[in-house]
């Protein structure tokens, strides 16, 4: 999901159809699905259990969710690539588009908005209008300040981007669960890990 492969050498799938239609197809026809409530409750029980286990030290809960996400991300990216066979993105703008229109679509069936680009185009925000992880959730009083309920998402993005040789920082800026207007995830590209790009790509 980064760097080269220009223009027409995009995969047949993505060049013929728009990325959106392509992702819709992958999501609809090539992805096994589970009940949304089961998914939400599973994630909810994990977070709630972590809060208990860490004696309501929410900073540690955030970190734990992040590292769980990281471990998911490094595995999930392979699934994403095997499913889509998308080419390497030639810019961060393209990467952001793939993340929102394809990755979020395929794995969570939502298409968040991308915006808030920094002036030097090295960071952007993902605005989650709906978040399937946090349906039904009301944060308890003591957690409302520190806990980033869906922090696992940041870890997943971090892990996945790292595997395609993009060293990024990913963090939550705001969350509707905390009473904010929007749920915003910030992604900042630190550098492209050029040494690790597999040989054979130009």
């Amino acid at each position, binding site marked *: 999901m980064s760097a080269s492969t220009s223009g027409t050498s995009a995969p047949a799938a993505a060049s013929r159809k728009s990325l959106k239609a392509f992702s819709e197809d992958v999501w609809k026809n090539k992805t096994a699905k589970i009940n949304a*409530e089961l998914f*939400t*409750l599973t994630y*909810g029980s994990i977070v*709630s259990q972590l809060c208990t286990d860490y004696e309501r030290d929410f900073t540690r809960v955030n970190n734990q969710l992040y590292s769980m996400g990281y471990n998911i991300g490094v595995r999930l990216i392979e699934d994403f690539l095997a499913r889509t066979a998308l080419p390497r993105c030639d810019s961060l703008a393209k990467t952001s588009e793939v993340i929102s229109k394809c990755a979020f679509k395929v794995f969570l069936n939502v298409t968040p908005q991308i915006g808030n680009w920094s002036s030097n185009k090295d960071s952007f925000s993902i605005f989650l209008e709906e978040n399937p992880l946090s349906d*039904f*959730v*009301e944060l*308890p009083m003591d*957690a409302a300040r520190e806990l980033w309920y869906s922090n696992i998402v940041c870890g997943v993005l971090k892990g996945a981007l790292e595997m395609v040789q993009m060293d990024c920082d990913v963090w939550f800026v705001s969350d509707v669960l905390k009473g904010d207007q929007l749920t915003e995830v910030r992604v900042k590209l630190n550098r492209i890990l050029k040494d690790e790009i597999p040989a054979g790509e130009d």
Partner: protein
Amino acid sequence: MPCYFAIIGAKDNPIYEAEFTNPQLNQFPPELKELNPFILHASLDILEDLQWQAHPQSGASTGTSGGFLRSRSSANNSNCYLGKIDHFYGLAITGYLSYGNMKFVMIHSGNTNSGLPVTIEDGPVKSFYQEVHELYIKTLMNPFYKLNEPITSPVFDSKVRTLAKRYLTK
């Protein structure tokens, strides 16, 4: 009419209570107000009794008196509503039982202090219960809420009060 509503957990512990009044209409008399929880708890026995009857003959003709057990196989939750289950000096008490054994009970007081028995309009009361039941299920889906613990969420509270305004204290 003023109402006093409570959700009672499986161990007869209250997990939510609220009083619905309308400033334009009369209130619970202060001496009665303190008694409300006691009156409600007294009626729990009756509710538990009705729970296992095939044909609960509650005081009010509920129209849905098909019997709790008999209609258990029916897909909807219309049989959760038990109608008027008890009365106490002119106050009427209605009940609703979720499948998870959460008891929703409510005291209805008349608009006037005439001492005449209160008539229950089953339609709106039943709708109220069903919608609160739905809210309760949503609360239950919150990973931070534990079964049988008091519901402290202000959102839940305000939603229940909105429902009460719509159905009860018009």
